[in-house]
């Protein structure tokens, strides 16, 4: 009964989405206030209905209602409660439900927090959100119904893939979708602005916080996915350039470009049509990613079950959403008046460079991901693309980004002085040179590129610190004065410093992976294995029963110089239901390096393959990502996003600190 109510709520949500997609748009064209405000109530009602439907599906999972096909295929009565719930989005139908749930959440949020928007803009934004909602609700109801019943109901379910039964993966999709779907708001704002024919600084101020929120969520989502891969796959890799990973990375790259170009629109009233294009492209890439993952046109380890009918439907959706918005762009964008002009060497110039490089980087990832598909379609030679391609094309493109990210914030708007900026960075430059020299000395001239990578990280980190210190006149003015300046500095400026430092930390973590060590040996209980100054003693093995698996658990005492550092417990788990084995790695970190131990197979004579890795700075990859997201959140808490934005935008600005 609850299941049917959920289904019914979803159909009702579709009808409301159709109303939301049309009436407010007409209302905005004809200036009918009542029609326009209908967008708000439908958006909120849609959110309520989709929440009900989503709750009904979660309820079916929690109560193990195997008469629902989706539950029977993806759940099992013995699963722990947490994985019963998170298993909802571990499959195609359920993840689409999560998708529309988050979409309706954003729609309702625009309705709630959009009080300071001009009524016509708000109506149009909500209408575009309604169109996206209509498309995806139709997609779910017509091709991917999660409420389909099975008669007769099976006794038990097939269970969730054991690899997916992991807390890291449980919360990875919601963050990822918050990011993907969050960019729909920027998209809706862009399309609404094109319909309206007006883009100004105020528009950029409304768009920026939404983009920033989506970007933060996506950053966390991607980092979680990579961290999950790191600790579950059992050999310590954390990024594979897999099509599905690329599908999340591409919107992140263009979304990053969008964040930065929106600053130029806001501060300098320039780059308008470019920013609009980026907003459209960012969300379009999210949509294309959805298409690639679910249509089966590319092979990937992460891909969902493949169904060509779904692929065709999503392709139609892409044609309407992306084709339609880009056609509108072609028609309307030439009429957007461009504002401030600027010299190539200026803050704007640096941001344009950042945009170009990020977009080119995204284009290489796009080509690399889709190349097999392109060449197959034209029957051409099948060149292959993998790790080597991305490392040779994408990585070099990011080097100038990192060099510029340090200099950009020190350039003035309109016309900057590169020499002066570099002069102010002398300390950072000196620190970088020192870091590189120390790097070469310590590693004995070790991998040159990795040392230079560390140098780049030092450069970005120090430059961000110098820029921040200059702003608050640290050490140049009395402490009290610096403190006062730090407090009056806009949160957005602190956020930028934090995010750029986060980037530097991530880069350092990536560069340092060149120095990892690994030892793989068969060790019998009582035996030892030595790595990077640590000695691992295999004390013994125990068999443990788990909820729906059995585990072989090792107890390994780690010593360094005779002193016990820690005791690690890597496991090998066997899931009888799926006849699958997974490895639970044990990681000991001191934040400077990880000691990573995974258990391989037993040799049948009492010995076990033990794989031990020492990975310097690897935790920094995720610490940096968290710092980037935190920087975004700090910036998001800036009061100018919240209070009387529209009023203040029209009021004379007066003296404001440059940022």
């Amino acid at each position: 009964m609850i299941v049917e109510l959920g289904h019914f709520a979803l159909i009702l949500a579709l009808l409301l989405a159709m109303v939301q997609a049309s009436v407010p748009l007409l209302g905005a064209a004809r200036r009918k206030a009542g029609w326009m405000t209908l967008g708000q109530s439908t958006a909120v009602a849609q959110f309520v209905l989709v929440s009900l439907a989503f709750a009904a599906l979660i309820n079916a999972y929690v109560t193990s209602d195997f008469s629902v096909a989706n539950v029977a295929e993806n759940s099992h009565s013995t699963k722990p409660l947490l994985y019963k719930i998170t298993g909802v989005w571990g499959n195609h139908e359920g993840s689409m439900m999560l998708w529309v749930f988050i979409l309706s959440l954003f729609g309702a949020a625009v309705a709630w927090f959009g009080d300071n928007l001009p009524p016509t803009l708000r109506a149009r934004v909500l209408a575009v959100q309604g169109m996206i909602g209509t498309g995806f609700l139709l997609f779910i109801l017509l091709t991917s119904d999660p409420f389909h019943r099975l008669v007769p109901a099976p006794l038990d379910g097939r269970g969730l893939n054991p690899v997916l039964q992991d807390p890291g993966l449980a919360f990875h999709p919601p963050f990822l979708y918050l990011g993907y779907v969050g960019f729909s708001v920027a998209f809706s704002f862009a399309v609404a602005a094109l319909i309206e024919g007006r883009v100004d600084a105020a528009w950029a101020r409304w768009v920026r916080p939404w983009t920033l929120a989506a970007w933060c969520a996506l950053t966390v989502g991607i980092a979680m996915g990579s961290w999950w891969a790191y600790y579950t796959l059992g050999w310590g890799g954390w990024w594979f350039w897999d099509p599905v990973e690329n599908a999340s990375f591409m919107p992140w790259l263009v979304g990053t470009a969008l964040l930065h170009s929106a600053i130029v629109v806001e501060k300098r009233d320039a780059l308008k049509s470019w920013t609009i294009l980026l907003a459209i492209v960012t969300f379009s890439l999210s949509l294309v990613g959805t298409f690639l993952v679910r249509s089966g046109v590319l092979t990937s380890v992460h891909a969902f079950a493949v169904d060509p009918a779904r692929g065709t439907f999503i392709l139609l959706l892409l044609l309407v959403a992306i084709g339609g918005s880009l056609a509108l762009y072609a028609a309307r964008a030439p009429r957007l008046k461009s504002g401030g002009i600027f010299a190539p060497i200026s803050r704007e110039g640096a941001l344009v460079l950042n945009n170009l490089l990020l977009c080119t980087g995204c284009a290489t990832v796009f080509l690399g991901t889709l190349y097999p598909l392109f060449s197959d379609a034209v029957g051409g030679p099948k060149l292959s693309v993998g790790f080597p391609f991305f490392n040779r094309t994408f990585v070099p493109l990011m080097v100038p980004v990192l060099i510029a990210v340090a200099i950009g914030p020190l350039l003035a708007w309109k016309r900057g002085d590169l020499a002066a900026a570099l002069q102010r960075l002398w300390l950072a430059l000196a620190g970088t040179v020192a870091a590189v020299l120390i790097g070469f000395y310590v590693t004995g001239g070790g991998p040159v590129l990795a040392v230079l990578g560390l140098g780049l990280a030092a450069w970005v980190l120090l430059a961000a610190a110098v820029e921040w210190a200059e702003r608050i006149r640290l050490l140049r003015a009395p402490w009290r004065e610096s403190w006062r300046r730090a407090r009056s500095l806009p949160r957005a400026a602190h956020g930028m410093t934090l995010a750029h430092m986060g980037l530097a930390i991530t880069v350092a973590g990536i560069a340092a992976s060149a120095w990892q060590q690994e030892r793989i040996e068969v060790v019998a209980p009582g035996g030892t294995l030595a790595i990077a100054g640590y000695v691992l003693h295999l004390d013994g093995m125990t068999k443990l029963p788990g909820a729906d698996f059995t585990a072989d658990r090792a107890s390994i005492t780690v010593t360094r110089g005779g002193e016990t550092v820690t005791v690690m417990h890597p496991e090998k788990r066997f899931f009888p239901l799926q006849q699958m084995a997974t490895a639970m790695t044990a990681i000991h970190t001191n934040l400077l390096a990880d000691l990573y131990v995974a258990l391989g197979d037993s040799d049948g004579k009492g010995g076990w393959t033990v794989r031990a890795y020492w990975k310097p700075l690897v935790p920094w990859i995720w610490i940096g990502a968290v710092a980037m997201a935190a920087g975004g959140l700090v910036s998001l808490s800036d009061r100018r996003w919240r209070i009387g934005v529209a009023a203040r935008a029209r009021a004379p600005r007066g003296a404001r600190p440059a940022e």
Partner: protein
Amino acid sequence: MKRALYLLPVALFLVLAGYFAVALRPGRDPSLLPSALIDKPAPDFALAGLDGTPGLSLASLKGQVAVVNFFASWCVPCRAEEPLLLRLAEQEHVPLYGIAYKDKPADAQRYLAQLGDPYRRIGVDESGRTGIDFGVYGVPETYIIDQAGHIRFRYVGPLTAETLERELLPRVKALGAS
């Protein structure tokens, strides 16, 4: 002129959508890519082995139905299919040969030490040249080469237990019987 520039994004997208439509055409399974080389002689190759072991050449494969698997240590799906390859070699006794594609010999060696080595012999295709000759689309990729050195089957992507049972093994057995 300037107007045309604004039309560029939508034009590019339409081209892309055309490719997507082609990719979706019915009957296309991305794993069962028709190879231009099916039933044709396999491209000739002679590759060095891993660290002192004898290498792999086309000539050395002749006279038996061989399964050739392209793999790489940097490839995640390869790790996924590795247990199946071990089964293929140890339980089904299929002559399985590996080509380490665009991989450093040391990395490939470490990879096999970690996961187990199912291959009778291995060739190292560090430059990817042999892969290009075969039309390798992405690793892993698996080929059946018959007694006369003709390619008879190609599978793109990680093998699954199902494809192993339904596609690969019956073909190997049929070719071996003829």
